[in-house]
């Protein structure tokens, strides 16, 4: 994939234009990520993206993601999307990826169909969840960070649309592997995020939804549990990080 170019002059010009526009932004890191990822989505006809700090990628185990930055999901879909990441199927479906990332120092871009037979994906339980969100993950990009963790970007396209072509995946790879700040973690630096794997899965999910600004009521509705249970999980999360308020929690992860 790295040796041969599938790109046309028109593609390269569009990439140059998008990055040129990105230079003129003076917002925060996360705002720039939104701008660039949305622009990339326009180029390759994808409708949503998610950036995560992938703290743990162990083959056969559920990947541990934190500090989600998402775009293109509406308010109804976003919490479901975050919840999908802890679906048991995700351990199996991300095995090939986790294995490819072991000891890797260069960025890796893989389309869904490169990671698994596409039929295996469509028939997995979790594919139903994706369909309910209206999108499938189409291409994944993982960027190794200095501390052994990864910056991970997933790009999503509507379910009824075809899989990504090699050219489209290449456009994503060229941009995602060439923009260093895309992989810097405004909201995920340091020991706070490396502690996240120690949290139980349910607490992890509540943490991510809290960081996205959802109320306990909304989280309860998403997870199909009572508000009291959510409040209990939230309490555990606060205690774990030694904070007393939502504001403090957000500041820890530097999302606000």
């Amino acid at each position: 994939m790295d040796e041969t170019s599938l790109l046309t002059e028109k593609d390269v010009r569009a990439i140059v234009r998008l990055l040129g526009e990105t230079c003129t932004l003076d917002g925060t890191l996360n705002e720039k990520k939104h701008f660039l990822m949305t622009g990339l989505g326009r180029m390759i006809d994808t409708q949503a993206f998610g950036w995560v700090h992938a703290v743990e990628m162990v083959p056969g185990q559920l990947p541990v993601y934190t500090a989600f930055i998402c775009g293109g999901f509406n308010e109804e879909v976003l919490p479901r999307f975050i919840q999908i990441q802890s679906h048991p199927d995700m351990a199996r479906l991300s095995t090939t990826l986790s294995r490819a990332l072991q000891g890797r120092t260069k960025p890796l871009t893989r389309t869904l169909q490169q990671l698994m037979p596409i039929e295996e994906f469509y028939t997995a339980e979790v594919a139903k969840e994706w369909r309910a969100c209206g999108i499938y993950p189409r291409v994944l990009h993982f960027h190794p960070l200095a501390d052994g963790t990864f910056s991970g970007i997933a790009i999503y396209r509507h379910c009824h649309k075809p899989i990504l072509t090699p050219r489209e995946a290449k456009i994503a790879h060229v941009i995602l592997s060439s923009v260093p700040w895309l992989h810097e973690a405004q909201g995920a630096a340091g020991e706070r995020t490396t502690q996240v794997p120690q949290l139980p899965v349910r607490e992890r999910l509540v943490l991510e939804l809290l960081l996205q600004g959802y109320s306990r009521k909304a989280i309860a509705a998403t997870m199909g549990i009572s508000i009291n249970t959510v409040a209990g999980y939230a309490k555990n999360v606060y205690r774990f990080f030694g904070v007393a308020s939502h504001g403090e929690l957000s500041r820890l992860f530097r999302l606000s």
Partner: protein
Amino acid sequence: MLVAGGHGGMMLKDTDIYGLVELLGQASGLNSPLAAKKQFLLDGLCALIGAEAWSWSRTASPGGGHRAVERASGGDRALLARPAPSQAGKRALTFSQLSDGAASTILFLRRPSRPAFTDREKLLARMACEEIPWLHELPRELPAARVAPRLSPRLRETRDHLLAGLSYREISRRMGLSPNTVHGYVKELYRHYGQHSRATLITRLTGTNRTD
């Protein structure tokens, strides 16, 4: 495999594409004014295409006489003092375009002793000069943050309902809130986007670059 250019036979290799895109990736990460990014990009382009100097100039009116070098850089500024680019022949690349009513020209120069620019070098420079309009523009203050900071989910929802043209009453019904709460949210949205009326807010939101 090579990329066919738009001018018959011009080719770009993958390494050229990565070189250019990585340069832009770095420039977009600089925490400095646009003028400094311009300098960084043009210096980087020089390195990429093997040029020794660049200059950027604007004429007051298209075809007008006055020509002022706004900025010049690169390893060998003495090159810029030599005869006009037309006489430097194949060791000069110029890209001109109209910008704010003036003609802007970016010039790349190579020492006469060196070989002429190749087609792929020309294409790389052309793509950058044609697709990045602010390389030709006068430095100015950027418009206030073009992307808004992140809003809370409820505020985003309120904003989306407003954009859909719903009234306060309808929004409050849909969100299960009192009209007073919705009113408070809308006030927050006004403050967030620096607007004072529903009409200007909607214009602002539907204008450009609404990424949040």
